[in-house]
């Protein structure tokens, strides 16, 4: 009996130590909210509001992912800027089932608004409905197909993002030359819209550039190795090509590697979606001119601003200003009145790549 007692105590003791350590960590994090790193530029509009005692939870796809760690910085800054209790939670792996579990717990914490970046929009729909039945305001990001959300906020419209990539490519190529486009799959809706947007921008604004006749668009199958091989083939069979539009985050580093290996640095240029950490060395050695993306910290911050506006009875409409540079003029989607888009693209090159750690 004595031994048993000791062991039970030991197990419980260990459990408590760990959880108390956990609470301690939590306390520190809460305290550091006051001095949250300033990662997002905002105007007064972002922090205005009638009440402060809102509780806003942000649930992301995966809390072990650098992209969402960056988003959390934005959410923490929002909490520090406004004094509102806004915080981020997420499962430890990208698993729709685990995310539903987290949401199920979070909606029981007397929260007023829930912002979700769904792993799988269909899978979270039932639990989002439960949240709305409790009177919680629900906002999604990258989840425009969710039926049970008040609004979906996207960083940009697809054509606009494509045009932005083209602007940067034109600048890198010096306004002259032939280019082609790469997507993960020809069936991928958003990436093809980006590529179409880029081509449309070139046709409208940059007569010095030409789209390669054949192939106009190549596939990387969302695989950086494949992107590298395809880019090499294109460069060998069409030496006139001096520019690439990459859309998937796998395309861009793959193409840059091909440029580097064939010794075409400074002669052939690529601009496209990419992750700073993955592309850092390629950007620094000059094989990759610009990577384009949206800043998850801004998206996290913007969702919280939007949630508070809805809680305080303001309407979200065409032209609504969320007080962030990328979200100062929201545009409503033509097909979906609940889908709002910002202009949240950013370009990263040699000069600012070290500011982004994800």
């Amino acid at each position: 009996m004595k031994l048993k007692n000791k062991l039970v105590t030991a197990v419980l003791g260990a459990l408590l130590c760990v959880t108390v350590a956990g609470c301690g960590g939590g306390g520190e994090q809460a305290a550091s909210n006051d001095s949250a790193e300033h990662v997002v530029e905002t105007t007064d509009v972002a922090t205005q509001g009638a009440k402060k005692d809102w509780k806003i939870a942000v649930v992301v796809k995966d809390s072990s992912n650098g992209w969402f760690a960056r988003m959390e910085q934005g959410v923490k800054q929002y909490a520090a800027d406004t004094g509102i209790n806004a915080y981020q939670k997420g499962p430890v792996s990208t698993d729709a089932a685990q995310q539903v579990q987290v949401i199920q717990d979070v909606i029981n914490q007397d929260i007023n608004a829930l912002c979700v970046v769904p792993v799988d929009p269909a899978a979270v729909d039932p639990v989002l409905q439960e949240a709305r039945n409790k009177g919680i305001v629900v906002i999604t990001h990258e989840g425009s197909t969710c039926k049970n959300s008040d609004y979906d906020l996207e960083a940009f419209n697809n054509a606009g993002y494509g045009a932005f990539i083209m602007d940067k490519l034109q600048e890198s190529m010096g306004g002259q030359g032939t280019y082609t486009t790469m997507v993960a799959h020809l069936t991928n809706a958003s990436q093809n819209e980006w590529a179409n947007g880029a081509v449309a921008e070139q046709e409208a604004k940059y007569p010095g550039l030409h789209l390669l006749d054949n192939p106009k668009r190549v596939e990387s199958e969302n695989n950086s190795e494949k992107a590298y091989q395809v880019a090499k083939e294109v460069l060998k069979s069409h030496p006139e090509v001096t520019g690439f539009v990459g859309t998937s985050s796998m395309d861009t580093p793959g193409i840059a590697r091909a440029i580097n290996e064939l010794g075409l640095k400074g002669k052939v240029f690529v601009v496209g979606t990419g992750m700073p950490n993955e592309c850092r060395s390629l950007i620094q050695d000059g094989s990759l001119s610009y990577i384009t993306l949206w800043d998850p910290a801004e998206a996290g911050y913007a969702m919280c601003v939007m949630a508070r506006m809805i809680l305080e009875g303001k309407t979200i409409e065409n032209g609504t200003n969320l007080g962030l540079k990328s979200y100062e003029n929201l545009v409503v989607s033509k097909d979906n009145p609940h889908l709002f888009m910002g202009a949240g693209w950013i370009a990263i090159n040699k000069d600012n790549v070290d500011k982004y750690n994800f």
Partner: protein
Amino acid sequence: MGAIQRVFNKDKNLSRLIVVFLAVFAVCAFMKGSLFLSVSNFQSIGKQFPEFGLLAIAMAFTLYTAGIDLSVVAVANLSAVLVAKILPAVITPETSPEMVLVILFLAFIGALLFGTLCGAINGFLIGWVGITPILATLGTQALFTGCAIVLTNGSTLGGLPKEVANGMGANVLGLPVPFIIFAVFALLSVFVMEKSTLGYKLRMLGTSVKASTFSGFNNVRLFLANYMISGFLSAVAGLVMLGRFNSAKADYGASYVMEVILIAVLGGVDPYGGKGNMKGVIIAIFIVQMISSWLNMYEGISNFYRQIIWGVLLILVLIYNYVVSEREKKKASK
């Protein structure tokens, strides 16, 4: 006091788990008060654990015979994908509500049979062909997941009749439907494992394959039964997920595999086979879910702490079991 001690000594493992359960409950209630003790929190908890709880019981059955079933999540998803594939094709807007219920019933029975068949494949590979359980089920896991990916093209299957999600999201007498499903199959499992002849034979098989053979048991048949139970319970879990997410996909709950092994071991099932009981596993499921919900109540605590706590618990349990078995060996040799 004597009576309490007698009860405690009757099943030390279970008593220990109940003490841990009560302690965790007390800590949660003390630190979070009304938020933790609310009806809606318990209803949430009742919706959350059934899907992985059923998988943990499935896993426990196979650990019981010194095996393992890594394909539980794959079987769950493949069964759910089949249902999600068939239902929208069979049910049209013109189908009468009664007919929809009949079709749903048949589809669910079909899914359960299919899950059992998947389990039979595992049992055949392990019992008849003689492949090590961990390798056999690693293989079938890839096979079943692969089939689900091919059937869905890797995307999510939705468009289910609204009865599926509404039914799984409902409460009956205040009890969430997933909880009721879990309770039924958990009780059945306790009965099979602890009261039935099959459970007794499985324990023999888990203790020693040779002894089981020489006792005149048909080991192939026992392995088949064991993995068919596991496949059946996995399919039940798959249907719960189908309703909870109103959709099916090849990789829902992929991270549950490791978690359910942990729960089964935490519940006192000896991975070397032959020892452990279902009641312990069920209490372990409650403990795990309670800690996880409690941690999610803290805004600043990352879910990584959950992993740390699981890890610490698992290692402590393994050390404890080792110490106890060494002690028993010494006693026996005296």
